[in-house]
């Protein structure tokens, strides 16, 4: 228990008769990347939404770093250390890449309600934001308006927003979708580096990336976890191969 930073028990959510997540139990250890894979519509993104608190679950509990956060709001959960990316890029479209990152730094630095202090003169925030942009390989585009960035760059920016929060855990929802080979490699290297400080629950369809990164993999089908194990165990699991991976691996 002590080595678990995130522990989800019995989490269920139904829309009418349709169970989107069905008694999900999943955990995340310190220094770990735990990948969650499964076919489209399996309930992966809904699970993320329940963990961050934007979708209310019906039953179950969520423990973050020994603290029960089940009844906290989405903002409270973000404040105490849950950081996420969205399946479809969600950025502040008319802000520059740098401004997006600065926004994400505001809460942690207790700057949000500074009413009359010039943001431009806050050197510390700018330096931190620029460092994050370097980490995600976007420093050359720091002044570009976010909505005009390429799809891949927007995915990187999303990850940058999550990094800026310096959270306890990351929940990444398909962060590599639409990235080219170089972008994916950059992301893999970055995730390997950041997991030491904040472990990652990773939803991803790029199986090469998942297998390169994940310490553990869970497979979700029709809202239920059907298997959990190391990459090797999952690759050799017949049920998983039947329902999701296919036979090509």
């Amino acid at each position, binding site marked *: 228990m002590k080595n678990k930073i995130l522990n989800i028990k019995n989490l269920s959510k139904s829309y009418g008769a349709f169970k989107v997540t069905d008694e999900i139990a999943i955990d995340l250890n310190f220094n770990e990347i735990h990948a969650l894979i499964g076919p489209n519509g399996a309930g992966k993104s809904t699970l993320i939404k329940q963990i961050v608190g934007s979708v209310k679950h019906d039953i179950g509990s969520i423990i973050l770093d020994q603290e029960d956060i089940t009844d906290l709001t989405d903002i409270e959960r973000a*404040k105490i250390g849950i950081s996420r990316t*969205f399946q479809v890029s969600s950025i502040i479209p*008319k802000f520059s890449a740098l401004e997006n990152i600065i926004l994400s730094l505001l809460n942690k630095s207790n700057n*949000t*309600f500074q009413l009359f202090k010039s943001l431009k003169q806050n050197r510390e925030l700018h330096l931190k934001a620029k460092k994050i942009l370097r980490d995600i390989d976007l420093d050359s585009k720091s002044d570009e308006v976010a909505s005009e960035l390429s799809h891949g760059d927007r995915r990187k920016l999303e990850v940058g927003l999550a990094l800026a929060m310096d959270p306890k855990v990351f929940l990444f929802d398909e962060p590599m979708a639409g990235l080219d080979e170089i972008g994916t490699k950059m992301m893999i290297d970055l995730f390997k580096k950041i997991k030491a400080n904040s472990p990652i629950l990773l939803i991803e369809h790029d199986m090469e990336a998942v297998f390169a990164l994940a310490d553990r993999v869970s497979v979700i089908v029709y809202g239920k976890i059907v298997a959990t194990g190391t990459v090797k165990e999952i690759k050799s699991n017949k049920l998983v191969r039947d329902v999701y991976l296919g036979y090509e691996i």
Partner: protein
Amino acid sequence: MISEHFFNKWIWSLLLIIPICGLIFDEPYYITLATKVIILGIAGVGLNLALGYCGLISFGHAAFFGVGGYVTAIMSYHAINEEILFNWPFDIFGSSEMLIIWPFAIFISSFFSLIIGLLSLRTSGVYFIMITLAFAQMLYFFSISWPNYGGEDGLSIYMRNSLPMLNTMNPLTFYLISLSWLLTSIYISYKLINSPFGMAFQAVKQNEERVKSVGIETFKVKLLVFVVSGAITGLAGSLYTDLNRFVSPSVLDWQTSGEIMVFVILGGIARLYGPLVGAAFFIILEQTLGAYTENWQFWLGLILILEILYARTGIMGLFNKKKTI
């Protein structure tokens, strides 16, 4: 294309030239008219913070404009009649001193915007529009049914409230007082939108869910913007009462909310000087077209339609295509 910075300087030059021309040609009416533009511009600057920068489409800012106006008139009325305003918890008298009235008008309109904001900001979109409208209309009908302060007929204060060492009845003096408040409200807006808080509320307008996900309490952000916005609009209401030496329920009417919104849209949403330019354009239309037909708003409607179809950045946007949030 000229820079917005240059255009803003041009606006300030014009604001200084107008009263001088009024004096040279002995036309105090134009000074009073320019004062009206400035005061309505202040109301627009207030609404622009909420609507333009934070995306809160308030259709109830007449409430704050009217509250500011009524506070001014009521305090002045009690001072003139030497009546006690409140006798609990201790005797509070009215005042005809602007330096006392302004803080009261700002405080009470802020209080109203806090209460209205606390309830209405739980909604969004069309529900927010309707709930803010409903609050303003409640105050409108309350003022009509309040005989102590004139009811439907409104309340006259005969003399403008005073400011030490100044003759506020002089049109130029009152113009300069209003101008200094305009400068202050624009400066406050400028400081706010360039602060960390400003970044937060401008982000809320664009993608509230994302702002929440980075741990920013968007409800508090929106509420604070709404209160500041209401306070500035309330101050404008106070000045408007002094300008006219009269207040009536019409300042609380939904039409006033609509007009303040029109100033913002005409001038340019989320442009610092947009509401002032919009108010000036509105008054010019009223004065010119209104001389030919009492239904001059027909042409205003046509202009608004054309603007929304072809020039959404408003008048300010015609001079500078800089993107706004």
